[in-house]
């Protein structure tokens, strides 16, 4: 494998006495889709939050292509090219769909305060360009018809898509998805798979996805890491991982492991 895009080295995260992550190491290859799975409480969301700077690791380090990012402020990590979606869709509910996407784009179509208060100069052009770019992203996720709808008024499946479009707006190199398939119906999961695969293959986007939903994870992942109790217990290609005894035990318990004859 060529040099990893994201490198997590021996990261530990503690909350008071609770050890959420206990020395996890993980490498994400550029242009790949890497999934992190594990039972509830395994530390998956914690890992994501550590990468994006919401939590500070007690030990270890996180590198984005040789640059160390742990300890940096979240908005700086974002600007280095890491975007994320949230488990409990943290959309800007009162804003329209297209405005939600424009938030991420604004930095790339920037103008100063003077322009903002006068609405003169580059204002109209910058706004128009941002709007156009936002419309393109919404098209990518299939939300073109919903541009002026308030985000909180969207049906759940569409909110999920908006989350992705919004994350893409910051033009990331790495996209972190926090349980994107949770609550989706089978058809919606198929659509989501198609969107993610397309993003990866045509745009060269690297994706790190956390989820439980096997139809998503097994279909699109190039590589899967399994966490349990804050530790990595298995890693490899999808077919290989699903047969690992430790993984089965983690999800289904000891008896299931014996029952499945592993």
């Amino acid at each position: 494998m060529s040099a990893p895009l994201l490198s997590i080295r021996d990261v530990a995260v503690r909350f008071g006495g609770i050890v959420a992550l206990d020395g996890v190491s993980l490498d994400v290859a550029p242009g790949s889709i890497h999934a992190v799975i594990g039972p509830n409480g395994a530390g998956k969301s914690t890992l994501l939050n550590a990468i994006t700077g919401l939590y500070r690791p007690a030990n270890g380090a996180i590198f984005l292509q040789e640059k160390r990012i742990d300890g940096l402020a979240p908005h700086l990590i974002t600007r280095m090219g890491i975007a994320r979606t949230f488990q409990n869709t943290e959309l800007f509910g009162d804003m329209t769909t297209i405005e939600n996407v424009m938030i991420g784009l604004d930095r790339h179509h920037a103008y100063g305060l003077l322009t903002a208060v006068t609405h003169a100069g580059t204002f109209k052009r910058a706004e128009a360009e941002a709007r156009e770019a936002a419309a393109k992203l919404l098209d990518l996720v299939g939300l073109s018809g919903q541009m002026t709808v308030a985000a909180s008024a969207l049906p759940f499946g569409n909110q999920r898509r908006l989350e992705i479009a919004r994350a893409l707006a910051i033009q990331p190199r790495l996209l972190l998805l926090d349980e994107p398939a949770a609550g989706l119906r089978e058809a919606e999961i198929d659509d989501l798979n198609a969107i993610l695969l397309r993003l990866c293959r045509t745009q060269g986007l690297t994706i790190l996805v956390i989820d439980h939903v096997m139809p998503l994870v097994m279909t699109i992942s190039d590589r899967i890491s399994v966490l349990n109790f804050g530790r990595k217990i298995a890693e490899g290609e999808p077919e290989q991982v699903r047969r690992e005894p430790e993984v089965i035990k983690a999800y289904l318990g000891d008896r299931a492991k014996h029952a499945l004859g592993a």
Partner: protein
Amino acid sequence: MTISKTIAAFVGVALFLISPHVLPEFRLFQVCLIAATAVVVLGQTVVTGFAGQISLAQSAFVALGGYGSTILSTSTGQPFWVTLPVTAVAVGVIGFVLGQATLRVSGHYLALATMAFTAIVQLALIHGDPLTGGAAGMPVPAFEMFGRTFSTGGELFYVILPVFVALFVMTANAMSSRFGRGLAALRQSETAAEAMGLDVLRYKAGAFAASGFLGAIGGGMLALLSTYLDPAQFSITQSVYFLAIAVVGGMLSPVGIVVSSALFVLLPELLQSFQSYLGLVFALLLLGFIVLRPEGISSIARTLVRVKDSSAREVP
């Protein structure tokens, strides 16, 4: 500009030119008072309405604006139209520094910190004897420009109104730009805004800076109108008063702010002989609106328009 906006602009300019010849002095004075108050409340709206940060520092910014420009004028001899903008920028910087507090606290503690700030400023003014005139206060020099003195309501009208309009237009523009979007985003979800690359602390501190700047300009205007600075005025209660006007007006609506400011300025007159109940009425209005109609007057207007529209549709 759209047609309706152009018409509104024409009407506005016409009213502006006609009023001093048609309205009596005390009415013009009231118009100036309303405009100055509205500018202060606009500042409150930016930080509490748009950025969603509770701030009870507005009274302190008003005080600093009035006292700052007066002291600067009397000590350096520079005219008010120079010292007020300079003071306002300085107060904006103070606001930015105050806004850094949002890194550590929010909600209740932020309210408390801004209250303490206002209290400290007021105490400093009361005890700052040689410089600030102490508890007795100090007089405000008359406004001079191009060799002319503007002291009556009718004269200050020509100074205050254009500034008021300019500031409102500029603020409205800023709020419908990417900065306004950013503020709206962080108001709804700070975590997501941060994840979108927004420097949330900078934006919040920036909102405080804007409220400081606008508060100071409004403070300078109010000082010119009252011609005297009395530190007893610049209390925490006064901050609550500005917050009240913002709430009643609807915290995101420029028109609402102006209407609400007018209501509060004209209330003493409307109450006639019940003057002593003025404070009580203000407080009751705030209480009533926050419980029953937190979106303020502007939402009432919007509801009326909606009702009108829907009833029109019912007609076959």
